[in-house]
Every structure is written in structure tokens, then in C-alpha cells.
């Protein structure tokens, strides 16, 4: 194993962090340099994620699935912190970098100038998200959650303005409370199991004294509540819509991955520690996931229908996506889970694109920044003050057609209609659900179908309004090349996912199957046979 | 040397010094509560901050010097810094109180009830 190959898993976390730190060392006004650095970082992470993905699928001795483990500080698990890249985490990192690259490209049109230090905050966000996906340690997960959230607070407020601040206040208050719950949960789990390592925790769940199991469950339940808040599960996710709606487009688009971090952790921990082999704790909390997922799905769909503008619809689409996956996780059927994972990829990209699109279509409503003094003299001035141009750089012709096409793809993806990848994911879930008839699966089938219809109704209403029925005094639709590249990249990924749907779905199903075998993960991390 | 091996005189001295210091400081706190006006109350804690503190610091230095078997005067640092910094606080507080009493802006950010018996102010 070559030098870099060994440390590959570190890069998705370290690279954005180092780049962001380096950006703090030079002048804020060197935009081009920053743009190049951030885009390069995203591209590099994508390559690394693909390499990790490849490794996770073929790295085992028998050429099969494995989890690559990186021991930070050279301390072995469960004592030190380990990073673990398996199919799921590598997939999530790859997804993050694709989304991140698209969003970043879009932001280069003008949004990265709407406030100071956008690139640094953005890279820190990526660092936090990737860390949350890769870490194999519960408390380190908390730390990465905080990195991600801290950056998200900055990005949510990026560009300032009353609406953002108002929504941001609630967002921060709720997430701070959730973080406290996270701490309570993790420490309680430590208190009864004596470990922070996820793999060892999974082992301890199996063998814990019956007397302690109640406390263990209390800890898991509180932790679960914290994660459900991040997933924006009903009734804990009302913060999502106002925050994402108010946030600047690139921030909101990047946030499409944040709720997925919550979803990821729920999947990871429930399948690792509370899977079939967990004895008396097997399938702990699963019914609640089902209920919360369905409620979220329903509420998100209604919210989508009720939305008055596209970015809000995008926010509810994020909720629908979370609800879908949670509900499916609540059914607890591995065959269905594969579809859900595939759906997760597509819906995340589509929700991200939706926010970007909403910004372009609703441009002119948002009134840039306010003239204010810099706090420090070395801090650059607000560029929106310098030039009143509000244009997104190079403007491309046929904007309406391009945006119409983009909107169409977004709608199809979010509503899960044929023929794009949103549909394939839904189809796979429905297909799996239809095979085993149970009240739960019927409820989820109905929920998925109705949410598709609701998504279609809501989005066509808004899209017709935004694209076809524009007021005469509404500004002409223009889209910058960078914006289109960002948006188009995300949507192209959705289309590619549909074309290579067979391979993608196969991957997702294998991943679900891998998640159903936690012993392999545990063995890779702890080096012992459970 | 462990605590059990401490000579009897040292035990007694350390114990009494600490007790006296604490008692003085406690007395200061009592004064803080029992005096009628702020300008009187502000004098009370100085008991603990000066002699009370000094006694306890002395107890500590003596104790650790004996325990460690070498001169351990590091608590002096605490004494010195406390002596230097406590007046700063008190001066500022007294100044603030005087100013607040002088001006009519009795109700402000740190809203509170007016002093029952404000003495004649200079």
C-alpha cells in the first residue's frame, strides 16, 4: 500500500480543512485563487471518494466488501478514534463532493461575494459533513456534527438580512438543544458501556447486563431524538423550511446534505448496533422510525403543496426525502433499504439543484446586502456595495429553455416520476414493499405514492407560475454560465444515475446488504471476530 | 511526609489558621449581608480578601512546606494577585454606585429597585 493510498481516507476531512485554513491566511479579495482552491478540493475529494468506494467494494481478502479503517494517532480501536470507509460512508462522501462541486460552481457567479469568508465556511461545512460520514466514533461524530453545524450557521446567515437572521436564530437554538441531547445520549451510552467506538458499542449492546439495558435504551432513545431533529423529522423539523428558504441559494443547496447526515447516522447506528444480532435490543426504535418517517413524509408533502415559493418547496422536498428514507428504515426490510439508498442520492442532488433553480427563477426579490463598515480594516468591503451590478457573470442565451428543462428534471426527481433516478429509487422501494404485505409496507406504499402526486401538484403549480406566468414587470430570466454549470452538473448527475440505474441500484442494494451484516464492519474495525 | 506524620503543632497551627481565616471571611460575608447601605457593604468582603486570605494562605504554605519537605510558598502568588486586583473591582464598583446614585438614571439596563435609604452624596 503506497503512502498516499494509506492516508486516502483522511483527505475528505483534511483537505477542505487545510484549504479553508490556508484561505484565512491571505486576503479575502483574492477570489479567483479561492475559487480554484475550493473547486480543486471538491474534485479531489470526489476522486478520493471514488477510490474509497472502489476499495470498499473489492478490498476484502476474498475481493468482496470491506470497511477500510484509519487509526488516527496510531491508536487502535476502540481506544483511539478511527475513520471507517465502507460502502455507505464512501457513497455519502462522494455524494457530498458532487453536490458541493455543483453548489460551489453556482456560488462563483456572485454568491460567494455576498458576505465574508464564504469559501472557508463552505469548505468547513464539507469537512464536517465528510467527517460525520467517515468517523467510527460516537463522540467524534458529535464533534463533526458541531463543525458541520457551526459552518451551517455561518452559511445560513451568509448574506445577512432580516429573514435569515430571524430563521437562523430558531435554527441555532434548536440545533444547540439537539447538540445537548446528543451529548447526553453519547455520555449515557459511555456510562453504561464504557466505550465510544461504534463497533465496540455494537458488540457491547449484545452482551450488556440485562440490568443496564434499560439505561442503554434511554441513551439510544435520546440520541435518536437528536438525530431525528437533524433529519427534520416531524414534529422536530419545523426549523428546516424557514431556515432553508431564507438562506442564500448556495447555502440552502449545500444544506440538502445536512439532513442526510442525520439520516445516515440513524441508518448506520440502527443497523450496526440494533440489527438482527442485537439480542434483546434488536430493532430498537424501529417502529418509531416508521411513524416519524411517515409523519415527516406526509407533512413534507403537504408543505410542498402549500409552498408559496420554490425555495420553500425545495425545503419541504428535503423533508419529504428524509421522511421517505426514515419510513423505509422503519419497515426494516433490507430489500427496500437498497432502493432508499439509491433514492437518497438522487433526491439529495435534486433538492440541491432545486434551491439553485429557485434562486435563478425568483431573482430580483432578494435585495442584496446593506452598506456597513468593516469591523477590521483588513477585512474586505462588501462587493455588492462596490458595484451595483447584480448580474451573475456571463449570461447565457436561451435561459428560459434551459431553466425550463432544469425545472422539469427537478420536478421529476423530487416527485419521483419516470424516467429519472428519483423514480428508480421509488420503484425499487415500492417493488420491495409490495413483496411483503404488512400494514407498515402498505402505509409506506400509500405514503410514497401520495407524496409523488403531492410533489407533482405542488411543483407544477409553482413552476408554471415561475416560468410560464411571469409578471410583465418581473425581471427577465437570466442565468449565468457558472450558475448553469453548477445546476446543470447536479441535474446531469441525476440523469446519469437514471441511465446507469442498473449499476447504481445494484450498488445501493449491495450496500444495504452489507449494512445488514454488521459483523464484517465490526471485524474490520476491531480486528476481532464478534 | 504524609498528613498522618505531620507534627502535632503543625496540625494545630494549620487547622487554626485555616479556621481563623475562614471565620474572618465568613464575618465579611455576614457584614455584606447585614450592613444597610451599599457603601458600608462594600467594606465587608475586604476582611476575607486581606487578613482572611492571608491566614489561609499561610496555613497552606505551612502545610505544603511540611508535607513536601521543602519551602513551598507558591500560594503567595494568589495572595499578591488577589491583593492587587480586589481593590480594582471595589474602586470601580464604588465609583459606579456613586455615579448611579448621583444621576437620575436610577432605572436603566441593570434595572433594580431604588436604594431604600440613600445617604447624602458628596
Amino acid at each position, binding site marked *: 500500500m503506497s503512502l498516499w493510498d*494509506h*492516508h486516502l481516507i483522511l483527505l475528505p476531512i*483534511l483537505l477542505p*480543512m487545510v484549504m479553508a485554513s*490556508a484561505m*484565512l491566511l491571505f486576503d479575502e479579495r483574492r477570489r479567483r485563487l479561492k475559487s480554484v482552491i475550493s473547486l480543486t478540493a471538491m474534485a479531489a475529494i470526489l476522486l478520493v471518494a471514488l477510490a474509497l468506494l472502489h476499495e470498499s467494494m473489492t478490498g476484502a481478502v476474498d475481493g468482496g466488501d470491506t470497511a477500510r479503517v484509519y487509526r*488516527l*494517532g*496510531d491508536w487502535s480501536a*476502540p*481506544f483511539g478514534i478511527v475513520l471507517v470507509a465502507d460502502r455507505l460512508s464512501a457513497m455519502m462522501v462522494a455524494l457530498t463532493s458532487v453536490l458541493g462541486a455543483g453548489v460551489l460552481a453556482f456560488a462563483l457567479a456572485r454568491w460567494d461575494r455576498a458576505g*465574508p469568508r464564504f469559501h472557508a465556511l463552505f469548505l468547513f461545512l464539507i469537512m464536517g459533513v465528510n467527517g460525520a460520514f467517515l468517523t467510527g466514533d460516537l*463522540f*467524534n461524530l458529535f464533534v463533526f456534527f458541531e463543525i458541520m453545524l*457551526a459552518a451551517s450557521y*455561518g452559511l445560513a446567515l451568509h448574506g*445577512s438580512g432580516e429573514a435569515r437572521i430571524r430563521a437562523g436564530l430558531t435554527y441555532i437554538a*434548536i440545533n444547540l*438543544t439537539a447538540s445537548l*441531547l446528543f451529548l447526553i445520549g453519547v455520555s*449515557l451510552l459511555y456510562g*453504561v458501556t464504557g466505550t*465510544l467506538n461504534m463497533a465496540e458499542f455494537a458488540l457491547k449492546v449484545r452482551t450488556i447486563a440485562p440490568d*443496564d439495558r*434499560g439505561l442503554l*435504551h434511554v441513551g439510544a*432513545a*435520546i440520541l435518536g431524538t437528536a438525530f431525528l431533529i437533524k433529519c427534520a423529522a416531524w414534529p422536530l423539523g419545523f426549523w428546516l423550511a424557514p431556515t432553508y428558504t431564507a438562506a442564500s441559494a448556495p447555502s440552502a443547496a449545500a444544506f440538502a446534505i445536512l439532513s442526510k447526515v442525520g439520516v445516515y447516522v440513524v441508518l448506520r447506528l440502527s443497523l450496526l448496533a440494533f440489527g438482527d444480532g442485537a439480542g434483546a435490543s434488536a430493532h430498537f426504535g424501529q417502529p*418509531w422510525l416508521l411513524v416519524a418517517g411517515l409523519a415527516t413524509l406526509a*407533512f413534507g408533502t403537504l*408543505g410542498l*403543496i402549500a409552498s408559496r415559493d420554490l425555495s420553500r418547496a425545495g425545503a419541504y422536498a428535503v423533508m419529504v426525502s428524509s421522511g421517505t428514507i426514515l419510513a423505509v428504515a422503519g419497515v426494516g426490510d433490507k430489500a427496500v433499504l*437498497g432502493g432508499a439508498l439509491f433514492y437518497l442520492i438522487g433526491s439529495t442532488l435534486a433538492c440541491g439543484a432545486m434551491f439553485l433553480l429557485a434562486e435563478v427563477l425568483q431573482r430580483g426579490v432578494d435585495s442584496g446586502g446593506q452598506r*456597513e*463598515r468593516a*469591523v*477590521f480594516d483588513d477585512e474586505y468591503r462588501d462587493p455588492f456595495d462596490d458595484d451595483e451590478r447584480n448580474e451573475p457573470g456571463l449570461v447565457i442565451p436561451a435561459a428560459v429553455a434551459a431553466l425550463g428543462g432544469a425545472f*422539469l428534471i427537478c420536478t421529476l426527481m423530487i416527485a419521483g*416520476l*419516470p*424516467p429519472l433516478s428519483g423514480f428508480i429509487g421509488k*420503484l425499487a422501494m*415500492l417493488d420491495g414493499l*409490495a*413483496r411483503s*404485505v404488512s400494514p407498515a409496507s402498505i402505509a409506506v*406504499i400509500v405514503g410514497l*405514492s401520495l407524496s409523488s402526486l*403531492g410533489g*407533482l*401538484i405542488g411543483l*407544477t403549480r409553482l413552476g*408554471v407560475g415561475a416560468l410560464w406566468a411571469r409578471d410583465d414587470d418581473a425581471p427577465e430570466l437570466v442565468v449565468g454560465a457558472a450558475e448553469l454549470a453548477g445546476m446543470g452538473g447536479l441535474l446531469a448527475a441525476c440523469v446519469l444515475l437514471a441511465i446507469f440505474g442498473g449499476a447504481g441500484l*445494484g450498488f445501493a442494494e449491495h450496500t444495504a446488504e452489507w449494512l445488514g451484516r454488521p459483523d464484517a464492519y465490526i471485524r474490520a474495525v476491531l480486528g476481532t471476530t464478534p | 511526609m504524609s498528613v498522618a506524620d505531620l507534627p502535632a503543632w503543625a496540625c494545630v497551627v494549620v487547622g487554626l489558621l485555616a479556621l481563623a481565616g475562614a471565620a474572618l471571611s465568613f464575618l465579611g460575608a455576614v457584614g455584606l449581608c447585614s450592613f444597610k447601605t451599599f457603601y458600608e457593604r462594600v467594606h465587608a468582603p475586604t476582611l476575607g480578601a486581606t487578613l482572611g486570605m492571608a491566614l489561609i494562605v499561610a496555613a497552606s504554605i505551612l502545610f505544603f512546606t511540611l508535607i513536601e519537605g521543602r519551602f513551598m510558598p507558591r500560594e503567595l502568588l494568589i495572595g499578591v*494577585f488577589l491583593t492587587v486586583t480586589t481593590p480594582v473591582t471595589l*474602586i*470601580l464598583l464604588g465609583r459606579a454606585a456613586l*455615579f448611579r446614585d448621583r444621576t437620575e438614571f436610577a*432605572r436603566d439596563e*441593570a434595572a433594580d429597585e431604588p436604594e431604600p435609604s440613600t445617604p447624602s452624596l458628596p
Partner: protein
Amino acid sequence: MSSNLLLLVILAAPFLGAAVAAGLPRHARTAAAILSWLVSLVSLVSLAALWPRFADGEVLRLAIPWLPSLGVSLILRLDGLSWIFAALILGIGALVVLYARYYMSPKDPVPRFFSFLLAFMGAMQGVVLSGNLIQLAVFWELTSLFSFLLIGYWHQNASAREGARMALTVTALGGLCLLVGMILIGGIAGSYDLDDVLAAKSVILADPRSVVALALVLMGALTKSAQFPFHFWLPRAMAAPTPVSAYLHSATMVKAGIFLLLRMWPIFGQTELWYFVVAGAGVATLLIGAWCAIFQHDLKGLLAYSTISHLGLIVLLLGLGSPLGAIAAIFHTVNHATFKASLFMAAGIIDHEAGTRDMRKLSGLYKFMPITGTLAIVAAAAMAGVPLLNGFLSKEMFLAEVVAGSDGHALNAALPVLATLASAFGVLYSLRFILATFFGPPPTALDRVPHEPPAWMRRPVEILVALCLLVGVLPAITVGPFLRSAAVAVLGFDDLPYYSLALWHGFNMPLLLSVLALGGGVLAYAIFGQKLNTNPRGGPWGLKRLNGGYLFEKAMTGIVKGARWVESRLGTERMQPQLRLVVLAALAAGAAAAFAGGVAIRPSWSSPGASEFIFAALWLTGGGCAVAAAWQAKYHRLAAVVLMGAAGLVSCITFVWMSAPDLALTQLLVEVVTTVLLLLGLRWLPKRREDIQASRAELVRSRRRRRVDLVIAAVVGLALAFVSYAVMTRPMVEGISRFFVERAYSEGGGRNVVNVILVDFRAFDTFGEITVLGIVGLTVLALLRRFRPASDSLPAPNQKQARERAGPVAEGRKAGDALRDTMLIPRVVMRWMFPFVIVLAVHLFLRGHDLPGGGFAAGVALSIAVLLQYMANGARWVEERLLLRPILWIGWGLTIAAGCGLVAIGFNRPFLTSAFQYVNLPLLGQVPLASAVVFDLGVVLLVVGATVLMLVALAHQSLRRARDDAEAEQAEGGA
């Protein structure tokens, strides 16, 4: 050419053409038309070329794998039924393209139109060529989608937007039902492959789920084919350009539903549900459509309702479940496509040339456009079922089938009557179409003189009308083989019944009914014609209330309103309820788990010593302070800050008491900084007074709210206390800590285990934690740069203003003297404390690895040193003297920490691997050198940077305000 390639061409050519057309420039009308025409021809020729390749009953298949794990592949499957539908789609498509070239205005972006049209054509091909249930549903939804785009082509018109949305919503709803139905069928049959499914008929019918599946599939078919009660979208879709109507509503879109029914007919055609739903919907649609058509004034409206009626007829035929009915249905599908397409095109020509489609304005057009008029008359006659035309033949078969099946159900018995009635209506509206438009006095309400259209615009109509005649006269030769092949595909060889495609079957019941209908229709026109033509309302008599479109709009508005209502009821954007929910959810989750799992407490209450009592007294005080802080936080913020400080100190003492000196140090330092931060912020908060009286109702409400919150808070407290007590009284579990304690010195090089954990064992946590601090610093800066204080907190604080005025005033004092005197003494002390605090920080930093302290504590201590200078001397003074570059420090701090971790990689060890060594230095002796110290140095730098940044950015707000005020004053003075 191989049949596989040809199959692929049939499907792919339209989509490719669509992509190319989309890329054509806006004005390339002719190019786009030629392209589209060529594309349809290529596909049509390919289709024709395949005709000889499947002899009776043979099926051509081409499978392209797509989603193997779901058993969903792209299967192109060509049988007789597909062929006839595909031919219809491509043939009429080619004619519509030709027609559209002349119909569309050069002002419109015509290439886009052709692009959509070709894409739609491809989607239809996909439906009819599907050899896989899921694939069928996919293309089905695509047809809905492209029809949406086509109907909404003139989206500047509100009616086009509404029509498009309605069509999409209804048909996509059906499509989703279809999808779920197909998934169910596939699940029952064990495969989505159409051939497998058709072969699994008995399995499917035996499964109870099949009823649900059938209902869902029918939902798809009926919505698509505009069957009652989903028929309303079709008339609204007439807002589309006429070529679209001619295409979608004669031969393609609406026929997809028919195609689906035909596909499912072999499986479900004989079931009860099928009969009641399909036949019931068919007969209702037949009658309602015909009845409504009678009253239309808009030519396209009339044709739209006529289409609905004819689709009802076909659906009714399929619903009857008899093989002959199915054959008749296919036959009528073909016939209807030809005459209806030509009629739509004719209506379009009239619209194009006369400028209106309103029959009340049109009159006597025959004189102006005799050829078009003749063509329209022939086509309308076919629609009315006049002999010698194709419409007559299939209607005869229809009537025959209705009569033949008129025993059994009451519905069956009534069918002949209803069918005749509907046919009479058909005659009536066909007559109206012709007579009101082409005959009578010359038109007066037109704003131009109508004339014949360009010849090539008429050509498609001529071809279609010729087909009507040809089929009408020579059915067996023209359409016989294709019909037979399609019938075989549906019914199979063995079950193919005898039928005759002849013009004359002798005098029989169907003929009688036909004659009755013709006569009745003419008679009705004679009586009611005038009244109908002038009917002011335009709506059908008796069915005004049953306006599906209106109800649909109502329903959609209702859904949106309902969703908003639910959103506001089941959701909230207010912070308090959300936080309450979060707290309650956590409580509920924890409680549920505790009750389910059981949490036992094993108290260990040994007799408490004096020390325990002191500890208890300490917390009695601390707890009291916390409660008092909570109590005071609303009206006495400063008091709350003070009391919180006290509670915090008690926590710190607890940490010392319970062997956690590092925690005590850190919390103490953080406490100081937090207090100052809060005080810096307090200045910008509004004054809050107890004496402001709220309304009585509000008081009651808030009291209730407080009571509830008090209960919640108490429960939270109890719960957390209970859990922590339960854990604390349990024996320690053997965990990872033992390892840390054992190895801290030997492998981490430090005696302070906590610090070794922080900078070595779990340095990655610290690495993340400092990143958080850095990020927050950046965010704070960003926020404060745009900070705008509320207007009432703009002026300098009262104290400060008064201070400048009042005080022991002596002559010759300047502004600021008072402050300088006040701060004289504190300033001296605070300034000289600076180096001492630095020494403290250095010690905290250096000893951290062995004793309480560490990078974070050192960093905060340094920040406090800077802070003291700020408080003593003011921001301006400090910044003139000290070089503060907090952002740079943050950057360097992070870089150093990361770089220190990266050094290990150079030695091929994992990130953050630390090394330590005892070095023997001259004079100093053995000195420990750990690489973790460098890491900790990064921590210090970052902490100082971030903390100073936060403090200073906040402090600068007052300065900035003063500066702005001064500038504003200056500006005013200058003006």
C-alpha cells in the same frame, strides 16, 4: 437490417429527433418540420419493414438491460396490437407534422414545438412497444409530461397553463396508480415481463391483491382516455395549438388508455370488476360526451366532447368482455383516429383562415373554402356513422355487439337504447358542425375574408379523408389484415372469433338502430338546431352543475388551502413551541425506553461524612443561584449574569472536588470570557420593565404557559437527575479509560491523562473542536459586519452620556477627563497585569501535558489578558499598540495543528500520531519533548484568535456607532 435495429429505430428516432430539434435556432421552422417529418417517416418505414417479419401471432422482442435487480429491462415488443397502434401514431404523426408546418406562426419558437411533438411521439411508441409493465408505466408518464408541455405551448395564455396543469395532474395521478398497479401485478406474477404476465393469468386472478391491482390499472387507463368522471381535462386541453389536439386527442394520448385496456383485456377482460368499471365508465362517458358535444359553440370544444364520447364507446366495447367487442374496439380506434384527426385539422384550418372557431360567428364558409368544406363534411359524416365511411362500419359492429349482449344484466338490457341515443346525439352534433359552419348566410362577424389554406396544409386532411372513404368502402382489403393481426395479439389464435368486415350484412337489428339514430339525429337538428346554435350559455342543458373542470379547480384550490391549514396547524415557525416539542420528544423517547427496558436504581447510601454535608451545602447555594438566575433573567439581566456566574463557580469547585482540575480551570476561564461577551451584548438589548402591563387575557395565557413550562422543566430536571443517579450508583464498567491511564505516561509522554487524551489519544476531537471555534469566529465576524442596532439602542448608554456631563465638575475639564480619572487606578493595575497573565498562560501551556492546563486554557488566559487591556484602555488605544490579526491567527492555528498532524504522515504513521522524547539538555537536564506540544501551540493560537475576534468584533459595534454618528453629524453640518 435486423429487426432488432429496426425496433430500436422506431423508438429512438423520435427522441433523437426531439433532441436535435431542441437545438435548432428559434426561427428554423421549416428545418424543424422537415426533420420531424423525416423522423416520423423513418420510423414509419421501419415499422412497415417489420410487418412481414412477424407472421400471425409472432412477437418480436428486443431486451436491453436497465435495472436487472428489479427485473426491469427495456423490452421492445412488437405484436399485432402494437403494430397497429404504432402505425397510427407514426402515420398520423407524419401528417400532423406536415400540417403544423403551415399552422404554426413564425413568431412562435416552432423548433421547440416540434421537439416536444417528437418527444411525445417517442413516448407513445414507448408505451405501445413496451414489453415490460414498468416500462409501460414509465413511458405512460412521459406521454403525460410531454402532453403537458404541448398543451402549455402557448403558455402566455392562462387557459393553456391551466389546461396543461389539469391534464398533467389527472393523467399523472392515473399514471401513479398504474405504476403501483403494475408493481402489484408484477409482484403477483413474479415478473414484470409482459409475456410472463400474460402467461400468468390464472395466478394473477387467483390472488386477492389482483383486485386492487386491477382497480389501480383501470384508474390509469380511464384517466388517460378521458373517461367519466375524469373526462374534464380533455376539453380544457383544447387550449393547445390545433395540431396538438389533432394528434393527442385523436390518435395518441387518449388512445394510450385504450391500448392499456386492450393489453390487460386478456387477463382481466372477463372479471366482474372489469365489466362494471370499464363498461360503466364507457357508457356514462359515451352519453355525457355526446350530450355535451351537442351544446358546444367552439369547433374544437365540440370535437373534444365528441372525442370523449367516442372513447366512451370504445371503452364500453372493451368493457363488455366479448372477443368481438375487443375487435370492434380496435377497429373503431383506428377509424376514430382518422376522421377525428382530419376534423381537428379542418377546424384548425377554419380557425387559421377565419380567425375564429366560434360557430356563432361562422357561417356559410363553404363558398369561401369549398375543398376544405367538402373534406370536413365527409369526415363529419364518418363521425356521424354515415354508410360508406369507416365510422359507419365500426359503429355497426358496436351496435351489433351491444344488441348481442343485451341479455343478463339490467345494464346490458338498457345498452341498445343508450347506444342508439348516443349515436343520435352524434348525428346531431355532426350536423351542427357542418351546417353551422359551412352553410347559411355569409359570415358577418369575421374580421377577414376567409379563403382556402395553402395546399400543403390541406394535404394531410385530404389523405385522412381518403382513408375514411377507402376503409369505409373496402374494409377487408385496406384494414383487414392489420385488424386481424391486432386481434390475434389480444385474443390469441385459438380464440379468434368469426367476424366480417363487410359493408353490408343484410337487414338486421344494428342496421335498424343505425337508421333510427341517423333519423333521430336529423329530426332533432330540425327541431332544436336553431335553439342550439343560439344557446347563449354554451353549456349543456341539465349538466351545468356537473362541470368537472370547475370541480377539479375547486379541489386543487382546496388541496392547497387544506395543505396550508394543516401546515399551520401541525407545524409552527415559532421558536418556543418548537423547543418545547424538542424537549418533550426527548423526554418521551427517554421515558418510553426506560419504561420498556426498566431502569433499576441501586442506591449506595453510606453514612455521609462532614465533607458530604459541605458539598450538599455548596450545591444548595449553587442550585439556589441557578434558580434565582432563571427567575431574574427576564427583568434583571445583569442579576442573571451575576447569579449564573455564581452557579458556574460552584460547578468549577465541584470539578476540583471530584478530581477534575482541568475542567475547573477551563470552565473558570471560559466563564470570565462568557460574562464579558454577554455584557458586551447586553448593551444592544432593549430595556425590559416589569411595570408594563399586559392585557388580562394575555396575562392568563402567559400564566398558563408558564405553569406548563414549569412542569416540563421540573420533569426534565427529575429525569436527568434520575438517570445520572442511576448511572453514578452503578459499578464502573470496564471500558477504554483503563488503557488511557495505563499508557498516558509510557506511550503518550504525559502524566495528565486528560490532557494526553486531548492532544494524543483523541487529538482528532480536539482538532475538530478548535475548528468549531474558528468557524464560529468567522461567522461572528460576518454577522457583525452587517450588524444594525435597533433604533432605540443607537444612542450611547445613559450612563455614558450622563457621565460626560455630570460628575464633580471643575473648570477646564474636557470630555473624557472623567473617564480617564475613573480608570486611572484600574488602568495601572490592569496594564501591569498583562505580562503576568502571559506568564500564567505560558505555564498553563507548558505544564498541560503533565498537570492541569493545556493549550485551550492558555489560549483563553491570553485572550483575557488582551481583554483586560481593552477594558482598561479602550479599543482604539489597544489597537494602535498591539498588532491584532485574529483571522490570521485562526488560520495559522488551524494550519499548525493540521501540519503537526501531517508530520506523522511523513514518517508513514497515521495523521496526528505523536512522538515524544526525553532530551538531555546541558544545564536543564532531562526535558520532555512531545510533538503534541506543537499541536497544542496551534490550539493556543486558534483560541486566542477566535476569542479575541469575538470579543473585539462585538466591542467594535459601539465604536462604529460613534464613528457613524460623528460622520452623519459632519455630513449634516456640511450640507
